[in-house]
């Protein structure tokens, strides 16, 4: 069968040849348009390295990972990464976004978007079996999509998809082909399919509780799951993907996730003593574990830069933040180098008050604003606060780097006239009112595309009301129009041009102050091999093996 290549791929190729686009960006966009990563890599003139040489790999053995074992029923309801790291070994996703933010087909064999990006054909990979013997077919794909779109399930996938997809827009063409008819053009479909709650379910056996019927297509079987204690996985013998030694993955016999509570100190001690091999930091904030273990000779650290950040966001519909001069004044009070150095120990990149990271493909280089309390004071006076202003900033006390960020800001914003009162609360309480507080610092997870973040956090719905996750309620007509334009623009240079405008607007009149982007680390014992750190800290345990 010959697959049609999306016409834009040729444009991308010519951009790449002219040097308008980096190799990584070419592969990213070409794979998004349905080309396999290998084919795209070949077009770009290089071969993918194999992850491990067959000679070195050893089979068998067990590893223990410290991770919270939360109560789990419906995978689509996940709101934490750690449970997904346990169950993504049992069930799998339709696509796979790798550590370089390139998305590959996974349970799907390929996808083909139409030229207008409104019709997506998903080709289901044939010959895959669930671990209970059922065949994986288009019915499972459709069943899973409908679970996400069902309001009663309450999946965060709904928020991501409902803007462009309805349940009646899903068409089954054959047992191996599904067509999605979108309401609007969307380039991020393959990446959405790898969002952590997007595990593919078995339509024959799934009845709302995955633990009762743990039937997935993945490399491990669920042996034991005790909430708050442990999750034990054992090797599946007939997994479809082969390892470097030509035999079925996974290499390990057993993986045990041990719940050690929320305190990091016992986990660090357990790592030092060799009692555990790894700490799943997917939902853990802060670099304390890295700081404690970086010099340990038994431990290997795998760092990765991310598009994760902490956003100091101001409600643009509430006083005093409704005045852009006040917002700009507070942004000028950020001593960015100091904030990164003290709040996150210098382990990240400086931000420029735009929610597009230097690691996003569309990033347009923009100047970093300087710390300038004098100018901030003038702006405050112009806005009608010559004697300064008292403000409260809400922070979750569990995010240590956010508390430090707030303490630094309080000190550095004082000369400008901001008298900041820090209101700490448990993280859960912050999540209850993260869209309501007038000034707060929110954690934003890693997302591979800049458009994904901007669509979520800084747009309005069709009636002009802020989108559900638009926490600062900042709605700017020009900005919204530019995002819509960017969503349907494939040419990377054109897209970057739009992003240059978007970033300029957000920096000049936006509602978010972004001082830094953080690094994350996969931290494991040296006996564990085959680790590649993912920016979302997703674990791909079938590639892991133990040396002795």
């Amino acid at each position, binding site marked *: 069968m010959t697959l049609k290549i999306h016409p834009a791929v040729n444009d991308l190729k010519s951009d790449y040849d002219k040097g308008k686009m980096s190799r990584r960006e070419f592969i990213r966009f070409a794979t998004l348009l349905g080309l396999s990563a290998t084919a795209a890599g070949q077009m770009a003139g290089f071969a993918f390295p194999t992850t491990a040489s067959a000679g070195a790999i050893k089979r068998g053995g067990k590893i223990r990972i410290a991770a919270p074992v939360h109560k789990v029923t419906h995978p689509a309801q996940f709101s934490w990464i750690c449970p997904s790291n346990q169950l993504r070994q049992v069930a799998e996703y339709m696509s796979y976004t790798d550590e370089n933010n390139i998305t590959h087909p996974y349970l799907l064999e390929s996808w083909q978007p139409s030229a207008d990006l409104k019709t997506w054909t998903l080709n289901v990979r044939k010959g895959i079996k669930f671990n209970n013997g059922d065949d994986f077919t288009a019915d499972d794909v459709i069943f899973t999509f409908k679970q996400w779109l069902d309001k009663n399930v309450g999946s965060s996938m709904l928020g991501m998809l409902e803007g462009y997809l309805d349940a009646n827009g899903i068409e089954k063409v054959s047992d191996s082909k599904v067509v999605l008819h979108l309401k609007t053009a969307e380039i991020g479909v393959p990446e959405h399919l790898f969002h952590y709650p997007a595990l593919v379910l078995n339509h024959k056996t799934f009845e709302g509780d995955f633990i009762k019927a743990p039937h997935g297509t993945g490399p491990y079987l669920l042996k034991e799951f005790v909430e708050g204690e442990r999750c034990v996985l054992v090797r599946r013998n007939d997994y479809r993907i082969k390892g470097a030694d030509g035999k079925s993955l996974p290499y390990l016999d057993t993986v045990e996730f041990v719940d050690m509570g929320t305190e990091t100190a016992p986990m660090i001690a357990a790592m030092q003593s060799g009692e555990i091999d790894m700490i799943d930091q997917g939902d853990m904030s802060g670099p304390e574990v890295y700081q*404690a273990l970086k010099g340990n000779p038994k431990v290997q650290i795998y760092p990765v830069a991310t598009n994760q950040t902490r956003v100091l966001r101001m409600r643009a519909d509430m006083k005093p933040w409704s005045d852009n001069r006040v917002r700009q004044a507070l942004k000028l009070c950020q001593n960015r180098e100091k904030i990164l150095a003290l709040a996150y120990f210098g382990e990240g990149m400086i931000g420029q008050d735009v929610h597009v990271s230097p690691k996003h493909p569309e990033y347009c280089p923009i100047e970093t604003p300087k710390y300038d309390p004098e100018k901030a004071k003038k702006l405050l006076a112009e806005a009608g606060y010559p004697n300064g202003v008292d403000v409260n900033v809400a922070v979750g006390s569990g995010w240590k780097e956010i508390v430090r960020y707030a303490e630094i800001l309080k000190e550095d914003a004082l000369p400008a006239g901001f008298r900041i009162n820090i209101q700490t609360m448990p993280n859960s309480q912050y999540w209850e009112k993260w869209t309501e507080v007038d000034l707060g610092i929110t954690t934003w997870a890693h997302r591979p595309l800049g458009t994904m973040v901007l669509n979520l956090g800084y747009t309005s719905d069709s009636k002009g009301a802020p989108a559900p996750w638009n926490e600062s309620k900042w709605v700017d007509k020009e900005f919204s129009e530019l995002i819509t334009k960017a969503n349907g623009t494939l040419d990377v240079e054109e897209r970057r041009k739009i992003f240059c405008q978007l970033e300029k607007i957000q920096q000049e009149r936006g509602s978010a102050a972004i001082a830094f982007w953080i690094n994350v680390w996969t931290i494991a014992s040296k006996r564990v091999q085959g680790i590649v750190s993912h920016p979302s800290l997703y674990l791909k345990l079938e590639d892991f093996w133990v040396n002795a």
Partner: protein
Amino acid sequence: MDNTKSTSKKNQNSNLDQNIDVPKKGKGRFRDTLKILFSSKAATIGLILVLFWVFVALLAPYITSYSPMEQDWKAPNKGPSIAHPLGTDELGRDIWSRLAYGARIVLIVMPISEKLWIPGGTAIWGVIAALFCGASLGLISGYKGGWADEIIMRLLDAMMSIPVILLYLIIVAALGASAVNVVIAIAIVGTPGVARLVRSLTLDIRTRDYVRAAETRGETLLYILFMEILPNAKGPIIIDAMLRVGYAIFAMGTLGFLGLGMPPPSPDWGSMVAKGREFILIGNPWASLWPSLAIASLVVGLNLLADGLREESMRYQ
């Protein structure tokens, strides 16, 4: 003090004071107290520890070279040095300054809001509030007896059955973290204990002749409770209060440690321990060691002082 004087005067006048020691006036009495104090080694050590922190708190601006908020971002998490005698915390703030200003919040001033500070430390206000509520309830309960006693004491028993830490957490989590709410929490948690003590003292004192005399004179209930009974029960109450200040400091430390004390960047000892604790494993134990020692020394000091005083005063009696 004035209450005692007027009561004793009245009692002398009515020639009904056989049961009570006539306190010495002014200097003589002070000398007696000091004598009791210094005859106990424990009390002396306790006094020295407590006075040390009181002076540190009073003189904080004069004995520190930095503001407790001043951040030196080039020198975070450093051990003791000449510039920073106890080292710096994770934001490069001088730990000695933070300890000294933290002592002020405990013992000398209470921040009502960012701008309004009132004299009397947070722990002290907590204990005063507990004493006031506890003493009122204990007096009524002990003096009135009957159903009033039953209702009050059973309610307080119910409160005492809740573990103290849990009660602190519930109260502060419900009210939010601030100095005033910490005072409220300390008061609520301390009230049942004070009430029990005062009630048992009242049960004894209410049978005394001078109380009968006051009743015969037709004095009001409030007068009898607060002018006749309370002043004569003050000895044990003062010693109990001293212990309670220690508990209150401990409670402040616990709440701060759990992130429910004063909001950051306030130099709250408990939150200093909590924040410093994160850096023990990366080789900087100082930021949590010093505030832990500060809490321990002040609490131990108050306990020694109270214990010593109690033992000595009992021996003198």
